[in-house]
């Protein structure tokens, strides 16, 4: 079964990274590199991506003629997806275990471990709906 692990944060959470020391950032990235390598080597990694910072985000809607209407203003409280992993594992417990691991990536002690949202990815819509 495929699961997605999502790391999200508000714009303020993302800006907080800019206050980290170089050593803290290096330790964080080294942890992520090692985590990705472990997922790849064990054959459970399907995909992983890191997204651009929220200040580049736009929300797009179709106008009445289908043309794109773009807007760059989001509520302060909005959580932005920062990055994700898609993994293929046998049980939700295994997905939660890997999420816990990435949750404990080194950061700044005052914030504790990062929450990771985990959700199954179904194969597609029910066949009777197609």
């Amino acid at each position, binding site marked *: 079964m*495929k699961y997605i692990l999502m790391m999200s944060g508000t714009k303020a959470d993302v800006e907080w990274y800019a206050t980290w020391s170089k050593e803290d*950032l290096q330790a964080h990235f080294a942890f992520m590199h090692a985590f990705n390598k472990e997922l790849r080597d064990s054959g459970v990694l399907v995909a992983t991506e*890191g997204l*651009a910072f929220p200040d580049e985000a736009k929300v797009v809607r179709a106008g009445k003629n289908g043309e794109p209407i773009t807007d760059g203003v989001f509520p302060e409280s909005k959580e932005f997806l920062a990055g994700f992993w*898609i993994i293929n594992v046998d049980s939700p417990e295994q997905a939660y275990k890997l999420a816990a691991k990435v949750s404990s990536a080194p950061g700044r002690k005052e914030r504790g471990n990062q929450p990771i*949202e985990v959700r199954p990815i179904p194969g597609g819509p029910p066949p009777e709906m*197609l």
Partner: protein
Amino acid sequence: MKYILLMNTMKANCEPLAGWSQKAFQAHCGFMIAIDKELRESGEIVAAEGLSFPDQARLVRADKDGLPITDGIFPEGKEFLAGFWIIDVETKERAYAIAARVSAAPGPDGKPLNMPIEVRQVMSGRPSSGS
């Protein structure tokens, strides 16, 4: 350049989905499948996934021994990711045009939903740590 199109929704918006008529839901899925086919043929799609409903979502943190603590309670105002597309296109305008197409997927009454689609560039590599 790679862009991600994120379809976000509130939990409340997912629940009535079960109340769509089969015909409306088929039209919605048919629309999405046609876009998927078109993007595959133009070579612009990198990946696309539809996620399970928010009631399946869990928030996971490591406890002090590194074991997972799972929680299924989210704030009412939380936006959930319903699905995404990663596309590889020449310009951001093309990314916005594709997002607008998806935005206009038909709703329960057959009219375009014009739902908001968040568009952001995907980093092709990990940010440099200076090492």
